[in-house]
């Protein structure tokens, strides 16, 4: 996207404005449609208003969430002190980090196998399988996974967090795959051919040429996988075993009992974390344009 954005479109309106002299607004801008700018602002305000309100009220001194009395950090302190919140957040992070690392490793390998290669038999099948988690509604994936894992638990008697992590790996792979593949496709074969001409073995050419060039894509993929894992609700809620209280499960349990400022503080921290990672992803994948 950012790449295409670098190519400026012809701007007839702007050109006309320039002909008449600077500072004067164009008389008729063909690109403008009345009301569209308003709608865009309404859209952004609509998206951010609930989040902004949530963040502001997480600093509210009053235990009642609706009445503002004064600024305070107390809910952050109490959220950090709440063992249940801490455990849920740590569990969610553990699942997200593990799933993101494994999914990114698998996705990198798959991207190397399917990008910039001559078409081979089974390539379409590999694409289809990798994208499968994106095609099926989450609720269907969720219940199918539950049924499958129940069967395995019955057969093997093995329980644990591994099931939840595996479920996350499955839907993280296609997300990690996309930016890595995009990066690979943009890479010039010439670098690797040059390395081979200089007597580098295929492994050394990969290790010292392909891999370093691929790093932004891999990091971008990992960020995306991490975000998607942290963002997931449906599959996490369905697949979590007893005693595995992840963040979404904790929030659902709390909301049933009512809205608390402590929950606002925790939600704000999570929003900050995902904003940070989304920003990193944005910066990492944007670089390829330059």
């Amino acid at each position: 996207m950012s790449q295409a954005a670098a190519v400026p479109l012809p701007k007839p309106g702007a050109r006309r404005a320039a002909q008449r002299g600077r500072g004067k607004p164009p008389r008729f801008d063909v690109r403008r449609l009345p009301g569209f700018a308003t709608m865009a602002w309404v859209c952004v305000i609509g998206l951010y208003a609930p989040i902004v309100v949530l963040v502001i009220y997480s600093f509210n001194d009053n235990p009642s969430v609706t009445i503002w009395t004064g600024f305070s950090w107390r809910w952050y302190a109490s959220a950090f002190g709440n063992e249940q919140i801490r455990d849920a957040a740590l569990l969610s992070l553990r699942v997200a980090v593990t799933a993101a690392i494994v999914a990114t490793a698998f996705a990198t390998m798959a991207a190397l196998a399917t990008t910039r290669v001559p078409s081979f038999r089974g390539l379409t099948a590999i694409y289809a399988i990798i994208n499968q988690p994106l095609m099926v509604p989450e609720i269907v994936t969720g219940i199918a996974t539950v049924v499958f894992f129940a069967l395995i638990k019955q057969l093997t008697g093995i329980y644990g967090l591994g099931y939840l992590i595996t479920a996350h790996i499955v839907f993280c792979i296609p997300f990690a795959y996309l930016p890595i593949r995009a990066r690979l496709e943009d890479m010039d074969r010439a670098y690797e051919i040059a390395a081979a001409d200089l007597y580098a073995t295929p492994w050394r050419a990969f290790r010292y040429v392909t891999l370093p060039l691929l790093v932004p894509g891999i990091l971008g993929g990992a960020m995306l996988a991490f975000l998607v894992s942290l963002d997931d609700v449906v599959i996490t809620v369905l697949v979590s075993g007893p005693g595995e209280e992840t963040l979404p499960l904790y929030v659902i349990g709390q909301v049933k009992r009512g809205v608390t400022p402590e929950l606002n503080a925790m939600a704000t921290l999570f929003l900050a974390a995902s904003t940070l990672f989304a920003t990193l992803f944005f910066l990492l994948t944007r670089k390829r344009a330059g």
Partner: protein
Amino acid sequence: MTTETAAAPPPAPAALSAAEAAAQAVERRAGVRRWLLAAPAVTVIGVCGLMPLLIVLAYSWAKPADYAGVVWRFQPDAWVNLLFQQDIFSDALTPNYAYYSIYLRSVEMAFLTTTLALIVGFPTAYFIATRSPRNRNVWLFLITIPFWSNLLIRIYAIMMIIRDDGYLNHALISLGFIDQPVPIIYTNYAVAYGLIYAYLPLMVMPLYASIEKLDFRLVEAGYDLYASRLKVLWHVIVPLVKPGIVAGCTLVFIPAIGDYIIAQMLGGGNRMMLGNLIAQQFSTARNWPQGSALALGLMSVVMLALMFYAARMQRSRAQ
């Protein structure tokens, strides 16, 4: 020169075949390596993504066990129940109106969400695509950031605003518009708002990608031919960005029709959608075959939507 080319052909077949054999060996090794590289991802998704669906397919034809699970006896009841209800006494089949109303609500909500998301998303995407390249990235970033935060946290933020004791009602009361809180949460409007809120970026992104490629000389030509803004929008811009519209609508429609968590949180218990019905079969109703059949039914609807999308894309590419 001429002698060389004349002399060259005789040894060529042998050399070529040797080179060919070597090339084939290299290619074969590369092929094996490609499969080995793809294997982990393909295996994980194949085993934990595709196989469960096959198991669900098998379960949908089995008999429900008393407490969750299935008994392995062939029984097509779950599929029949999608449309008909069996009378306990006479075995007569009557239409399953309870399910029809849930299907209808799901489809209605999905269409409503898609339409409203298009109405809001199109102008937004158009506005973004007509900014300077630098501003475009900032706008896109702004639109996608909320999308990357936990869905439940976003729903929670909405709940804080629209619940009976929420900020919206407080604001309306203190401004004197109303004196009693208006019920907003646990209505269809709340669910629709939640769905649009959650999936709007999925509409804006493909629309943006289409509009950004739009050749504005065609738009200018439309104005030169004395078309009004509305006419240009309808007869020039919309037909040109149709692929983006179809992609955006598909991307919003699919998660909206399969929604589970938004209807549960913002719709309360009585605004059931297909997703909730499916989840219920695996929790309180303890009828796994029924849940499996419903899930596969939903999946077929989504697959049909995707096929429709693919067909549209192919047609527009052919043009």
